[in-house]
């Protein structure tokens, strides 16, 4: 089933036993972040958390860890909560085949009920903001879907963007936003700033769960996120025009903030504990002026804790990073079987492939580096044989243990681009990248002493099923 807003998804999580309502009164800090941090340590079926008694607030509703486990990610996609990781990635791939599904324009969004304009706008009056990690420079909004258009081609809906970016609250109507140069909004801002203009943005908070997934999917510049949402939901995504900017925003959001990134202005921002598991330092970053806030009555603030991996963000961007890389590789190399790019948004990528001829696996590995997402990520690429499941790390380690000879299987390419947040870079934004060929050499590459590999017996699959039935019947 398709969820049109966050509230209906929270109801489903509750029914499925995947929403934990914390009824005790808690402190805004450090309790809520610490609880969300702890939820991430509960394993594959960790619940979302819901708080509505927060010290000092009279009317706070805060949802954390909504995508924070494979069980919740499955429910977001309308799959049974027991669905395994690779099966979720496979479902994502199958549904992508329906892309693009045009969004549906829907009137009377519930967030139009309440508005604040100009100097009246005060984000603190609307959201029960909370701080996350000790070294953070302030209050962050880190799960909002931010909408912008290409200033040189504003009528082209394919070039519009819906993305999740880190946003720091700098004042009642002042924010900072981090446009990583590899991400689409940075291209929009670059064009606006070259022309000496501001970039209008709509920041949408508390969305249906598929909007959060597509907003964090590294799609191509001219691919429309709402059209992917339609494919993943199996129904057009409901959108509506934001009242001030006209930007297309989700119909079901809890809060819609409109304003501009002020052109050619920068101001100290951060640090912030990032998805890399490290703080970014204080940098001079963009400034957003809030011009209008629209919100539902009794809005739910959906927020995301991120820290030492894995936390919610890793689940949110796991499948959504694997799938576009798989699609792009498969297009050029049909031999590619599967792509696991779920470690730190694809700073490590594992690809399984058949080999056309000797050296082919290395070529596939190098192609990863030149995909749009690989440009800013993919610091290490591991290529494994077609019978190795890249989501099965013990199998990947077996491949590294036996198929990889450093003498000929490590390709280090100097001074390639990487996102500035990658802490291992020599200088921020520049890193050597590594392709590890952990496949069995094929002719004319005759290195190694492989002889014959042992495979599962032909009868093993049937026996596995039989044993599972026997075990279930005990």
């Amino acid at each position, binding site marked *: 089933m398709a969820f049109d807003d966050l509230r209906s998804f929270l109801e489903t999580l509750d029914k499925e036993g995947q929403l934990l309502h914390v009824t005790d009164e808690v402190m*805004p*800090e450090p309790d809520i972040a610490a609880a969300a941090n702890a939820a991430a340590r509960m394993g594959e079926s960790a619940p979302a958390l819901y708080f509505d008694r927060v010290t000092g607030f009279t009317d706070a509703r805060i949802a954390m860890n909504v995508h924070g486990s494979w069980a919740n990610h499955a429910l977001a996609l309308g799959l049974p909560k027991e669905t395994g990781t690779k099966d979720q990635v496979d479902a994502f791939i199958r549904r992508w085949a329906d892309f693009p599904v045009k969004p549906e324009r829907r009137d009377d969004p519930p967030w139009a009920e309440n508005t604040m304009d100009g100097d009246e706008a005060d984000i603190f009056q609307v959201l029960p903001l909370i701080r996350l990690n000790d070294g953070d*420079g302030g209050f962050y909004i880190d799960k909002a879907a931010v909408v912008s258009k290409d200033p040189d081609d504003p009528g082209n809906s394919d070039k519009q963007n819906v993305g999740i970016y880190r946003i720091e609250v700098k004042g009642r109507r002042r924010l900072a936003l981090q446009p990583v140069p590899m991400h689409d909004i940075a291209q929009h801002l670059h064009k606006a*700033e070259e022309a000496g203009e501001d970039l209008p943005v709509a920041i949408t908070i508390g969305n249906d769960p598929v909007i959060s997934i597509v907003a964090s999917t590294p799609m191509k510049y001219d691919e429309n996120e709402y059209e992917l949402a339609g494919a993943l939901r199996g129904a057009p995504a409901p959108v509506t025009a934001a009242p001030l900017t006209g930007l297309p925003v989700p119909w079901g959001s809890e809060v819609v903030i409109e304003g501009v990134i002020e052109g050619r202005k920068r101001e*100290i921002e951060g640090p912030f504990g990032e998805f890399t598991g490290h703080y970014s330092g204080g940098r001079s970053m963009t400034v957003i002026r809030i011009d209008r806030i629209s919100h539902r009555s009794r809005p739910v603030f959906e927020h995301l804790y991120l820290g030492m991996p894995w936390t919610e963000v890793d689940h949110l961007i796991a499948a959504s990073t694997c799938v576009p890389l798989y699609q792009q590789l498969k297009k050029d190399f049909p031999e590619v079987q599967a792509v696991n790019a779920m470690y730190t948004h694809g700073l490590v990528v594992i690809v399984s492939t058949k080999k056309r001829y000797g050296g082919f696996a290395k070529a596939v590995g190098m192609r990863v580096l030149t995909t749009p997402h690989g440009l800013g990520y993919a610091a290490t690429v591991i290529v494994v044989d077609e019978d190795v499941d890249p989501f099965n790390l013990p199998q990947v380690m077996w491949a590294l243990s036996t198929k990889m000879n450093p003498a000929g299987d490590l390709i280090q390419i100097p001074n390639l681009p990487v996102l500035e947040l990658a802490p291992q870079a020599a200088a921020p934004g520049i890193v050597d990248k590594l392709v590890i060929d952990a496949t069995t050499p094929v002719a004319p590459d005759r290195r190694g002493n492989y002889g014959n590999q042992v495979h599962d017996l032909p009868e093993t699959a049937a026996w596995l099923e039989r044993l599972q039935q026997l075990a279930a019947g005990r």
Partner: protein
Amino acid sequence: MSAPTTVCPRCAHPAVENVFTSPVPGAWDVLQCRQCLYMWRTSEPARRTRRDAYPDRFKMTRADIDNAIEVPAVPPLREPAG
């Protein structure tokens, strides 16, 4: 609740502004440093709110602010057409 902090825990600047006060009176205030823009709630643990308990590794100086790199860099203005 009045602000118990007289200086910014992070950069020790003396100018600190009250940004928001708890809807439940007396519970907490949100404060912001005018120099480094650090923002915090007075009810947070001492390690986040008091200069003497604030970890050295998170401290910031005027020089850190002045030398912070631009993300992203501001591009040159486009030449006018024609």
